[in-house]
């Protein structure tokens, strides 16, 4: 008789970076997020999966108050970043978003040079005292975005002139330039080809050593490949949250099983 493999045992316990309790989100009358409790670990990639309209993107956007920009959106409950309520009146959403960076589905570089795209955040947050320091920050960010070698000779060229995959890595470099603690990614690879996707996934894995990464993805294989923790959302509920290996080999909830095996959309 051999022992049943415990795939989850390889995931070590990390510090809690974000703690959400009883979160409700309403768009006008629509109750989009219902009673979500989740603890996102530091230095871990957490994937949010679920069918379209399940609330995973909505919940992700709560984590850096992107929903503030939507008038009819109302958020209730507590979301704590390092133990501090991010919806507290004293919190400046702009400062918060420097700490909690975001990468979107479609690469959206500013219509500026590659250099200025990355330098934008550090400039408005006053992270560099002089040009030399700014140069250093830009180079470091582009290196972390795994795109430095491809653009180092043309930093003055427009960011919009890069290929889709390069643009997305530029956006990731831009997001990490302000030294965030959490990186939110909303379907960062859905507009990319498989090679660019692999490059971004490799990058995500590297970023994990410094940041807490939360990624929303429709590709379950991507969630399985890049994340250590997976949360399954369905109809506004957080149905199951566990080690990724458990979610994909032996989920506890029938709805999770039906979704990941392709039985419900």
């Amino acid at each position, binding site marked *: 008789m051999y022992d*049943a493999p415990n795939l989850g045992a390889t995931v070590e316990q990390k510090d809690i970076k974000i703690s959400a309790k009883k979160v409700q989100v309403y768009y006008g009358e629509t109750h989009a997020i219902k009673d979500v409790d989740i603890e996102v670990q530091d230095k871990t990639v957490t994937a949010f999966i679920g069918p379209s309209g399940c609330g995973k993107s909505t919940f992700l956007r709560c984590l850096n108050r992107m929903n503030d920009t939507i008038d009819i959106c109302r958020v209730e409950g507590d979301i704590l970043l390092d133990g501090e309520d991010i919806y507290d009146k004293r919190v400046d959403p702009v400062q918060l978003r420097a700490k909690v960076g975001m990468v979107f589905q479609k690469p959206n570089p500013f219509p500026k040079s590659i250099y200025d795209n990355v330098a934008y955040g550090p400039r408005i947050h006053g992270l560099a005292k002089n040009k030399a320091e700014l140069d250093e920050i830009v180079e470091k960010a582009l290196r972390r975005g795994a795109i430095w070698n491809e653009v180092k000779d043309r930093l003055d060229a427009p960011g919009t002139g890069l290929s889709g995959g390069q643009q997305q890595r530029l956006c990731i470099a831009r997001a990490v330039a302000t030294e965030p603690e959490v990186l939110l990614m909303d379907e960062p690879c859905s507009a990319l080809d498989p090679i660019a996707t692999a490059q971004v996934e490799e990058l995500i894995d590297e970023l994990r050593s410094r940041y807490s990464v939360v990624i929303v993805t429709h590709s379950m294989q991507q969630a399985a490949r890049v994340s250590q923790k997976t949360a399954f959302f369905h109809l506004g509920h957080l149905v199951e949250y566990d080690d990724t290996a458990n979610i994909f080999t032996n989920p506890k909830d029938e709805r999770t*099983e039906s979704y990941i*095996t*392709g039985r419900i959309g």
Partner: protein
Amino acid sequence: MNDKHIVSSFDAELEQIQAHIMKMGGLVEEAILDASKSLKNRDEELAEQVRANDKAIDALEQRVNDEAFKLIALRSPTAVDLRVALSVMKVAGNLERIGDYAKNMAKRTSVLVHMTPVEGARSALRRMAREVQLMLKDALDAYIQRDAELARDILERDRDIDQMYNALFREFLTFMMEDPRYITPCMHLHFIAKNTERMGDHVTSIAEQVIYLVTGALPDENRPREDHYRAELHLSD
């Protein structure tokens, strides 16, 4: 859980692989029964047939493995689907081994028909083979019906097979001590008994795969083993 995939061809492929397992299971059950029948009736022709039929079982195992391999590569199965893909390969391996033991029983029968019959042993061996075949039938039913309870029951029943083997072992020893002329046939009969006992272990392994398939974990309790005869004879593992 909803039983059907959104992509129906996925279901068709999973069903096809499992249909091969069932077909393989049917052939193996037949091989056990025919081999033990040929032993009982000293029927050399039937024994020859069992040996020839083993090729079909081997071919089916290959087919199950090929299809499971393709399914894993092309469909990226997860959760229960992944467990189906992995378990069919293991179950096919177990069935193929049982088929080999049946073939070996037929082979020894071809030798035994030309020797002095050993009284009583052939009936006991046939009962043992019959019991293993029934266990296999239930294990395959448990597999198809995803019945972990029935599978657990099979783990218990394997103890009876072990006991039958231990009893036969002593009987053969007695025969051989009484009359050295019995040594050659009894050695063959003992190998048949041992192989039948091994068949039971493979059926048990299939039952464990059913439990893994249904629950996602292998049974963890140690299976009770009847091995006091080891102590008696100073045998070690």
